[in-house]
């Protein structure tokens, strides 16, 4: 079991060492700072588009939403318009809630069984996976948006507002950004779940640990640079602005830790299209959530619908005519 997470852990550690040593020892700033990030962004964009196009090119033959509430029915029966939508507006609300608030996961329960005279199966609300996932994704988003500071000049107002709120608990200097700490904490929680929850551990693959370790590595290096090694921010900004303006430069005074951070981010970007991290795109296209339950109201067209052989009434009557006549059942042909 252990190799499922020891291998990815080792892998991420090696990636870190590779970049750190490559910069500090071999002076390969140009490779880890310029070649790899450009290649990674290209791989991410091309791969992401390719995957989404691949999904989009598959047909949607049937309208099969999972209904989670009362259908549209008789006028006096109250429909659940969100969990069993019959209109695009309802589907839209359902999708927004799904994507922004992880509504389905919010329902999560935990089953327990006690073998005693009652031998009862019980179900309790299980909120921690939902909380952990939500914290993880929103912290990640906030961190990502905050990093726009490095890629845009002047820094857009919304990034400054976000930073203001992110640092609203003013702890020391530099101000502690909640999102970074939360991202690390949530990722560690999700990792702990994968290792210590027996069921989740059993279903986990090495490919489930790898991105977690990678993101933890990214968060840790980021936090280190910000609070402990105090990376040269001006140098970093010169570097990042060089990348986005396609005039890459390698600044003086920015060390291996930074390049290791950039390298791991690059690996993450390139990894997304070939992994389960594509769920960020897939969730929009999931036919059990993004379709209205209105197939009886409006005919859905299957693009590859084809004719099939059926056992016709004529064949049926030919087969059973005598018996039908004897039983007094009406027939189309008398003989």
């Amino acid at each position: 079991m252990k190799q499922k997470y020891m291998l990815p852990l080792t892998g991420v550690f090696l990636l870190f060492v590779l970049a750190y040593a490559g910069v500090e020892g071999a002076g390969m700033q140009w490779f880890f700072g310029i070649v790899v990030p450009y290649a990674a962004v290209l791989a991410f964009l091309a791969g992401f588009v390719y995957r989404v196009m691949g999904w989009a090119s598959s047909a949607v033959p049937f309208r099969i939403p999972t209904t989670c509430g009362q259908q549209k029915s008789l006028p006096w029966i109250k429909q659940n318009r969100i969990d069993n939508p019959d209109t695009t507006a309802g589907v839209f609300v359902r999708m927004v809630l799904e994507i922004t608030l992880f509504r389905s996961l919010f329902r999560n329960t935990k089953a327990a069984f006690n073998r005693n005279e009652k031998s009862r199966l019980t179900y309790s609300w299980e909120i921690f996976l939902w909380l952990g996932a939500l914290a993880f994704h929103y912290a990640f988003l906030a961190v990502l948006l905050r990093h726009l500071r490095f890629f845009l000049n002047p820094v857009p107002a919304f990034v400054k507002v976000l930073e203001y709120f992110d640092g609203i608990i003013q702890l020391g200097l530099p101000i502690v950004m909640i999102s970074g700490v939360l991202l690390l904490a949530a990722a560690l929680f999700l990792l702990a779940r994968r290792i210590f929850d027996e069921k989740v551990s059993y279903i986990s693959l090495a490919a489930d640990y790898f991105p977690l370790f990678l993101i933890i590595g990214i968060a840790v290096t980021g936090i280190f640079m910000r609070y402990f090694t105090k990376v040269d921010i001006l140098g970093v900004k010169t570097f990042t602005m060089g990348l986005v303006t396609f005039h890459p430069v390698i600044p003086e005074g920015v060390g291996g830790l930074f390049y290791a951070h950039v390298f791991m981010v690059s690996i993450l970007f390139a990894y997304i299209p070939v992994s389960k991290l594509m769920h960020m795109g897939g969730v929009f296209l999931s036919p059990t959530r993004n379709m209205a339950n209105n197939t009886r109201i409006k005919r859905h067209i299957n693009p590859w619908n084809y004719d099939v052989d059926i056992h016709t009434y004529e064949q049926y009557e030919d087969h059973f005519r005598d018996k039908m006549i004897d039983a007094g059942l009406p027939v189309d042909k008398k003989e």
Partner: protein
Amino acid sequence: MSDELKPDELLDKVDHTPASGSWMDTTVQIRPGIFSYAAKPDSLETLGAPNPRQWNPLDDDWQLPENWQEIIHNGIKERLEKFRTFKIFMDVCVRCGACADKCHFFLGTGDPLNMPVLRAELLRSVYRNDFTTAGKILAKIPGGQKLGGGRPMTVDVLKQWWYYFFQCTECRRCSVFCPYGIDTAEITIMGRELLNLLGLNIDWIATPVSNCYQTGNHLGIQPHAFKDMLDFFTEDIEEITGVNVAPQFNVKGADILFITPSGDVFADPGTYTCQGYMILFKYLKDKYDLNVTWSTYASEGGNFGFFTSHETMKRLNAKMYAEAKRLGVKWILGGECGHMWRVINQYMDTMNGPADFLEEPVNPITGTKFENAKSTKMVHITEFTADLIKHGKLELDKSRNSNRIMTFHDSCNPARGMGLLEEPRYCIKSVCDNFFEMPENTIREQTFCCGSGAGLNAGENIELRMAGALPRANAVKYVHDKFDVNTLGTICAIDRAALSTLCEYWVPEVEVYGVHELVGNALILPGEKKRTTDLRMEPLPGMEDEDE
């Protein structure tokens, strides 16, 4: 059934802690009591299904076609293009584990491969190996397969597929909780389609399919016998009510064609539900001159083709519209059945429509337009009856059901593939005084399967069925202990059979009733005599001492 596990023995075995090690390293142990018998060659031949032969799942050699791996590979490829669901569900699972303890088979058997996520991983592991870029690259590195979670398609994997895709009742409960809406039913459907390409169906599905194709219904009841069965019910009802409710068959120009699962015609206690329909139609005929016809050709509402392949589903379902067209009815009314209604609600119009030869359904008695069925033109009988009751069109004597302390089992498909939740409840509450809901995590969209759906209602897999029934039974027992519930209402023919076995095993004090059996008991037919018994010929409340 003598070597069957006792309930206590089964409960002793429940353990939700997975073994150590990796599931990918396990080889499948096909166990009697869990698996269903293999499809007989005759049944496969009826529809020209591939590879008909006599085979036994316990044998080493499953007599597969020589190029079976190629067939599977091409089968997966074709389905990835034809079904976006399949492609997305193969790609986006993050293995968060939310689904793990939502499956009744996992809760009842504790077999970790019954966690929905792993049921899907059985297929996904092969998909990753053969169809994804990452998988193809990793497969070339030593140990890489394991890193990416891929594995090659082998006979062992195929046997695992067969064993576990026939341990899923396609109930969709896991799909409710999945943050991406991954629907294990859809994955099982694909898995079974692929297995069918190699002739690997189970007999409890293949033979009903064959029967349905040839004779019009799963049980293979021939037209005259079908009529005999209903004549027999007519006699019983006349004895109870004094009214002759004889139904009409294959009548051209009737107002409505009625189609219900053949289980209602053949298997107790569904037969009583069937009698309920007959009483209702007689009432509507006498009071409002509504003409309802039955069909011996389209004498099956259920569709075991749905458990075989999309094509088979379409071939069996086609009879409904074909018969409605031939008879020239206005619209179709459908009886109480679970998967039948998933097919009608989400597939029928797309597969076999448009039904432009039918009228948009209107209840001629109340004037209600069934807006939600205006394209498919098929109405659920509880929608129809609820509308009649709401408009005060039925004369009901609730007291005849006053000895029934009810709870209601939402059938998986009407709940999660349709959302038919309030209509049956309204009908029940209109004809019964005592109604108690089971705990909220076990009803409505969170309802637990009977454990025997999707073609698994066989005899030889009884251990699996009773284990899968545990979560449902547990909730029934809860309301039985707390509120003295003695009756489990349902709107599904498979439920009527399966829940009866479930109750007998887990909660023997509770009986299973179809909703229209209760309606039939309460409905006061014009000119009926004083009833002393219910449709089961048991004394009505307060009539226990009455002389015959």
